[in-house]
């Protein structure tokens, strides 16, 4: 079943990247998708399904838009620091305790931290997130808990 | 327009050389990998620019494959220096 899903996804990807012209292209696409699907499900991924089920697709667009805004803000901030001759940074390592039910929520949160202005995830140990920040004053999105709230909203509030 | 794209491509190439300097001196092995990864991202963008400039659509495909390889190589190298081998069942 998972192999079938995987192969279907791969075939759709094939059609997007190389729009098939004629029967041969489609056949080659099906063959390659099947082969890679079987190989990937057998050797590449852990046996259990990642728990994506609690994701709420209706909230995805808002989260993605927020993330784009955040990453642009983050780059502007880094630009300001880098082009300043004094290099005004005070790097610091913070530890943040946040509990999520799903593994997917945890990794989404870790990636969201990396995208947020001034912060970068170093390590995740259970519910503890070790975060490097450029400057404590710049990490307001993380410290105020706004980010955790956003991720929780995306995954249906599993706190 | 095309001139602008050429200028952007040349600027990116110059930046890639600056990154190579970091790959040369960069004190830790992670610094070097990071620098090479950044060079890869710039090469990817230059490939896409060239594809538009010259009107060769296939260069976009080359850039796509280049980007994927760049990503996988970086992750594999990171895994290697972290655990000492590529295949490790229980890393995080």
């Amino acid at each position, binding site marked *: 079943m998972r192999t079938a899903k995987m192969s279907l996804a791969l075939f759709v990807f094939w059609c997007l990247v190389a729009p098939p012209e004629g029967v041969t292209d489609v056949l080659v696409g099906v063959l390659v998708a099947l082969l890679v699907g079987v190989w990937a499900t057998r050797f590449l991924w852990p046996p259990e399904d990642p728990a994506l089920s609690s994701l709420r697709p209706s909230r995805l667009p808002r989260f993605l838009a927020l993330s784009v805004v955040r990453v642009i803000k983050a780059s502007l901030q880094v630009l300001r620091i880098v082009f300043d001759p004094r290099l005004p940074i005070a*790097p*610091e390592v913070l530890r943040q305790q946040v509990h999520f039910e799903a593994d997917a929520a945890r990794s989404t949160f870790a990636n969201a931290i990396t995208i947020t202005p001034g912060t970068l995830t*170093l390590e995740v140990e259970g519910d503890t997130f070790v975060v490097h920040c450029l400057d404590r004053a710049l990490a307001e999105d993380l410290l105020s808990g706004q980010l955790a709230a956003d991720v929780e909203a995306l995954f249906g509030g599993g706190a | 327009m095309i001139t602008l794209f050429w200028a952007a491509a040349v600027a990116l190439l110059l930046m890639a050389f600056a990154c190579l300097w970091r790959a040369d001196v960069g004190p830790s092995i992670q610094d070097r990998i990071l620098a090479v*990864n950044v060079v890869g991202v710039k090469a*990817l963008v230059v490939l896409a*620019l060239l594809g538009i400039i010259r009107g060769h659509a296939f260069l976009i495909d080359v850039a796509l494959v280049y980007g994927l390889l760049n*990503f996988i190589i970086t992750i594999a190298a990171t895994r290697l220096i972290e655990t000492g081998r590529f295949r490790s069942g229980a890393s995080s």
Partner: protein
Amino acid sequence: MSALIVLQQALSVLLVLAGVVFLAGGTLGLVRLPDLYTRAHAASKCDSVGAGSILVGLLFYQGVAFDDLRLVLLAFLVLVSGPTTAHALARAGFRTGLPVGRARGSDDR
């Protein structure tokens, strides 16, 4: 009609220029910042935004056609892979015990 094309081209120029500035920032950060973690900040944020901005600019230049889905995929790939690689490298540095710099100096070698 032509006004639309002019707008499209202007947007394209703007995005490409912004992308070059962002990439320059990322490069300068990679060269100037004092330790691995801060460099990873610069590389992950500035580079992915800069590359994404240039690719979206190229998309506007071409006009939207089905063929251009590859450019969108490329931009998506860059935006996703940048922070991920930076995190992986920073984690490797953290696990192998690379010290986190506190100094405000520009060179810690």
